[in-house]
């Protein structure tokens, strides 16, 4: 390029003449920086910088020149700037006035103790806030029980359709696949012991008691829980929640109660569906892999699956639905400020709800096991 920037130096005894040419612009800073670093500003040296031939000077070039001028002067040299065009001179003046400050643009990695403390503080704050939320939800729910005419039936039915009916295809598919997997794995092991018929016990109990409730709850957490957080969070960002409050409408009553209520009704129903299709899927595999006829399978099923185990599985529906709905709504209300927060809290909500479901399931297993159920 013809207009590449340059620096011509000529030295006579104690005077150094530096003639600047070309474009002293942002894109040329690296090479100009190297060129200027070659000048040593020693005690008593007189440096004359001539800028009359400059084609262009922008803040980058001017900043670089002033930075080095300052350094030369600190080392005891005398620096004079000559022949600069009027606009260039003004730019240089401006940059002499601005102090040389560095601001951090590098990502800083915070102290691990600081992070641990921050995390613990956030956790404690979240737990306290969730307690308050739980209290408000309980109060609202009990006031609705006393005044059933105020129960938002229409919203509950809408949420039931959203979280229930629309989840039927995916829950069916997942439950069939789970039944198929359990039956296949079981068949391989049981065949070796000649205890093929016990595939029914294995399948029925694991499906009805554990797999169907867990899988369904996880699917609902991913489908509806995340949607609740995102919906409430977006409403929070758009100031819709504040608008509802000023209109005298309780967001707890119109948003949280219908969602949690709908989940409590719908989750056991979805679990029942998962039981049926999961065991059905296993039944088909049992015939293919072990030669157990549908007749034998169903006959054995009546003995293999005690009513208690089946009911425990169904009862897990409301037990899971309550924390699932409450946590996902709570996370939605925690959103404040920007749209970015909505995504962050939705992620947290899904992680929290799935963890809560699995933790509660583990606790239930221990308690029920000790009770001999």
């Amino acid at each position, binding site marked *: 390029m013809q207009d590449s920037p340059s620096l011509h130096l000529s030295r006579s005894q104690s005077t150094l003449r530096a003639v600047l040419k070309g474009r002293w612009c*942002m*894109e040329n800073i690296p090479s100009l920086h190297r060129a200027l670093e070659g000048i040593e500003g020693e005690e008593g040296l007189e440096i004359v910088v001539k800028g009359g031939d400059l084609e262009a000077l922008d*803040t980058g070039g001017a900043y670089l020149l002033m930075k080095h001028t300052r350094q030369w002067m600190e080392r005891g040299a005398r620096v004079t700037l000559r022949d600069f065009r009027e606009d260039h001179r003004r730019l240089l003046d401006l940059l002499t006035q*601005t102090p040389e400050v560095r601001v951090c643009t590098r990502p800083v990695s915070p102290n691990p103790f600081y992070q641990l403390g921050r995390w613990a503080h956030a956790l404690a704050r979240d737990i306290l806030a969730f307690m308050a939320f739980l209290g408000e939800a309980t109060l609202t729910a009990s006031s609705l029980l006393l005044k059933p005419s105020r129960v938002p039936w229409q919203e509950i039915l809408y949420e039931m359709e959203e979280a229930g009916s629309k989840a039927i295809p995916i829950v069916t598919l997942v439950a069939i696949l789970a039944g198929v997997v359990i039956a296949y794995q079981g068949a391989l092991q049981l065949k070796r012991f000649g205890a093929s018929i016990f595939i029914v016990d294995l399948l029925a109990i694991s499906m009805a008691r554990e797999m169907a409730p867990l899988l369904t709850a996880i699917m609902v957490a991913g489908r509806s829980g995340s949607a609740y957080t995102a919906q409430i969070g977006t409403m929070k960002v758009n100031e819709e929640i504040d608008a509802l409050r000023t209109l005298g409408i309780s967001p707890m009553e119109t948003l949280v109660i219908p969602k949690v209520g709908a989940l409590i009704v719908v989750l056991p129903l979805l679990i029942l569906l998962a039981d049926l299709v999961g065991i059905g899927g296993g039944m088909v595999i049992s015939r293919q892999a072990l030669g157990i006829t549908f007749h034998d399978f169903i006959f054995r099923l009546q003995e293999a699956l005690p009513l208690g185990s089946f009911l425990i599985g169904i009862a897990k529906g409301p037990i899971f639905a309550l924390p699932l709905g409450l946590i996902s709504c709570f996370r939605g209300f925690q959103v404040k400020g920007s749209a970015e927060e909505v995504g962050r809290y939705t992620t947290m909500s899904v992680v929290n709800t799935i963890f809560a479901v699995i933790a509660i399931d583990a606790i239930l297993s221990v308690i029920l096991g000790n009770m001999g159920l």
Partner: protein
Amino acid sequence: MMDEPVVEVKGLVTRLGGKTIHRGIDLSVKRGEIYAIVGGSGSGKTVLLREMIMLLEPHQGSIRVLGHLLSQVTPREGKWLRSRWGVLFQFGGLISSLTVAQNVALPLLEFTSIPRELIDELVSIKLSLANFPLDWACVMPNELSGGMKKRAALARALALDPEILFLDEPTSGLDPVAAAHFDRTIKELRDLLGLTVVLVTHDLDTIESIVDRMVILMEGEVLVEGDPREVARFPHPWVQDYFHRRKGERDWRGR
């Protein structure tokens, strides 16, 4: 080369979602001027601005920026052009996962190979040019007020010392004092750095205090283009309403 318009729009037609937004727009922006695009809501001002910065493509017609025909630029030229202009979006458009200082450093890291410690100093210079308080440089954008966001975004737009500054409603959402201050900053920067400024605005104060030339868009066409004082005298009900409603007539008739 100096007399050639910096931005030149000819016969521009834009259709969006089956609606014709522009039906043949011609305008030109000269080097070193502050040029305002004005028009009622939905007149396609922001769309026009987005076409000038290659975020949208017009249906027909041509846009030349710094002599390059935007519809025919190669990816390389496109990258170069993008480094020659800075854009201030209406709500700042700051990257929310980076601090203010990192936002300003972003174009410098992307387009240049300047050593890191020089970048840190350049960032502080750009922030002070945009009147952004340096103590706030390491703050995340969502902790800033609207006015501070605009100043931070202006600093980022200035990062590469662009030739053209595109501003989308620079003073919307600012209080009148902050808006006047922002206007002054833009004018000072233009005088100091020789920028060409193209802005979309509704703000009569901005037009009165800093704008050199302006265009009014109406129903997809250019209603009038020229010096604000001439435009204010243009006999069209919308223009008369626009200039004389809020401020009272003495401001404009007295000149």
